[in-house]
């Protein structure tokens, strides 16, 4: 069976972009029971709208319900599960026993076990399979060899994280945020305390300099290992980042989509090609996590340095006027006549051009596209599909 590419989506626009750019499924959090509840604007009606949209193009929607439940959190759980079942959500992703058991008792929902449970072996994966869990999202602390061994012994479908932010702790085993800022890390309140700056002491002797002890890790980037995961017949490859921008989602999903499709077509390119595509939107340093085994200094962030994407996202195509050959763009970042832009479409076509003129919606000539979300028009000979990304090409 063809592997699934699973993308995050923090809102409806991002979800649709992810699906249009090649994700087979998206996972979203509703306003309840999700670790990203704060970031969510997915009310029940919007979840239904997304499910209908996804099913209309033969794709899937999973709902995260991965908080660690306290007694006070349980109110409304049954009704929520029943609703998700009624609107034909494709699966729920959870980590608490109560969600698994209530979902089994009340619904026909497919159940996936969240990485919050940090499953690191096949015994536990199989236990959950027998408990009614169809898919287990494995812990991010596993090497490729360990994943292979688990896959060989596992009855459950397996989902593997391939890209995005990583907890430094085993997921679900951290209360740093609870203790330091009174926000419950396992109920959506994580303050990323692990990314703060610390000094290291041995007894009373300071060892570090200027708070340079950091626990923070680089983001995961597993292009190098996707071929191995495909060879293993893993069920799903997962991208992290429900808080990321539409441009990031489109770019990263598209790069992994190309990699997967190239594998199935027997036409894999050098891995640097896919990595360079990702770099057009990536703004954090990346590494390969635990895929090669124990992590080293290579996987840690010690200097808080951000990466600058090689291409700056400047807008999204919202339409094309065939009669006047005008491209309508929703501005996201500053650009002006003379800039060289690159259009990147959902079907992976890339067109590079130099901006000659920028017009307002009232056909006034503008010296630049200055305002976020402003609709501007550019003369352009080719019809470009809606939701194509527009990037500024940077000079080296």
């Amino acid at each position, binding site marked *: 069976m063809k592997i699934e590419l699973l993308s995050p989506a923090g809102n409806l626009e991002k979800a649709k972009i992810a699906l249009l750019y090649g994700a087979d499924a998206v996972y979203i959090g509703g306003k309840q029971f999700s670790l990203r509840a704060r970031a969510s604007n997915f009310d029940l009606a919007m979840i239904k709208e997304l499910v209908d949209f996804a099913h209309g193009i033969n794709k899937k929607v999973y709902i995260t319900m991965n908080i660690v439940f306290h007694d006070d959190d349980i109110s409304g759980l049954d009704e929520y599960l029943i609703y998700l079942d009624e609107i034909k959500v494709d699966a729920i992703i959870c980590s608490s026993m109560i969600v698994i058991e209530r979902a089994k008792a009340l619904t026909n929902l497919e159940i996936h076990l969240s990485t919050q*449970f940090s499953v690191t*072996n*096949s*015994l536990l994966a199989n236990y959950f399979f027998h408990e009614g869990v169809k898919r287990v999202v494995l812990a991010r602390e596993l090497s490729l060899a360990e994943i292979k061994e688990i896959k060989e012994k596992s009855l459950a479908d397996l989902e593997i994280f391939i890209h995005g932010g990583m907890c430094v702790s085993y997921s679900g085993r951290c*209360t*740093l945020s609870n203790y330091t800022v009174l926000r419950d890390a396992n109920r*959506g309140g994580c303050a990323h305390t692990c990314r703060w*700056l610390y000094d290291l002491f041995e007894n009373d002797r300071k060892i570090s300099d200027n708070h340079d002890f950091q*626990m923070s890790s680089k983001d995961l980037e597993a292009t190098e290992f996707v071929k191995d995961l495909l060879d293993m017949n893993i069920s799903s490859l997962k991208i992290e980042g429900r808080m990321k921008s539409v441009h990031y989602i489109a770019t990263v999903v598209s790069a992994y989509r190309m990699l997967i499709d190239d594998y199935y077509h027997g036409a894999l390119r050098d891995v640097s090609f896919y990595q360079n595509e990702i770099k057009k939107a990536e703004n954090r340093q990346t590494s390969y996590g635990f895929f090669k085994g124990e*992590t080293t200094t290579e996987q840690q962030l010690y200097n808080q340095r951000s990466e600058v994407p090689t291409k700056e996202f400047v807008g999204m195509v919202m339409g094309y006027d065939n009669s006047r050959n005008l491209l309508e763009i929703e501005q996201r970042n500053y650009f002006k006549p003379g800039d060289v832009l690159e259009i990147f479409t959902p079907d992976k076509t890339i067109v590079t051009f130099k901006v000659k003129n920028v017009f307002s919606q009232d056909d006034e000539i503008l010296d630049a596209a200055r305002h976020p979300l402003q609709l501007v028009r550019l003369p352009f000979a080719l019809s470009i599909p809606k939701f194509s990304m527009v990037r500024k090409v940077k000079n080296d």
Partner: protein
Amino acid sequence: MKFVVRLKTIEEITELISMGADVFLVDTPLAVKKVGLEMYDLLETIFSYGKEVYLLVNKMIHEEDVEPLNKILSKAKDNRITGVVAGDLTVMVKAKELGVANKVIYQPGTMNTNSFDNEYFFLKEIKGITISKEITLSEITKIFTVKKTELSLVGHGFIDMFYSKRKLLTNYFIFKNIVRENIRENPNFRLNEEMRKDSYYPIFEDNGGTHVFRNLALESFDEVEELEKALDDFFIERIFIGDEEYYDSLKVYNNKMSREEFLEKYQDKYNKGFFYQFTEKIKGELDEN
């Protein structure tokens, strides 16, 4: 309610019993945050004192750990071992295969936070669960009202906040080009965060990874009367605590020393953890990535 203590030496057993210890918790090869490295090899001697013995298996279990786990759980078939304290649910799964699931106390630290967990694990016929460390006293007592399986709590000592597989100290010294021995299982490292100048968080690296602890130890002297109404086991954690202080804490819980005397002696090290402290579910407006 039994007082479960961590054992460091054979020589202290008699003294610990006289102070009120009911159960000795012994580190195994699959324990992290160890305090008594060679005790596992001295089980026969420990048994000879006639007290209950639990084995500590709190490492996250990877595939390579399954065979060592098998050996530990086979040893746990011995009637003189009455509990296996498990950090990873895999221990329960393997114990069921070997017929010793009824000795497993599931103690993951963060996951046992509601009444349903107590019912779920009752139906799995394990010995019990340890209520999670980040919930309030009122939440704990609510779980008591529907008690089905045995319940326990780590009610005293330095509680860990974070368990990473990464060797964070070793990697840091490499990053700094500092050649250094005695990193593993060294209890003297502490972290200080730039905005919290007075808080020093113990950080401890071992074969399982890296653990970060609260800056202050937990004490439950005022709460123990309420807790013992429903708890079966009260764990007294030992890491980072000197022997005399550890013994004193056991004395207080067994009314052999006054809480006032103890707190006068050690007060600046202790607080009440989350007993009276709710945590927010939703992020605020702090600077976040």
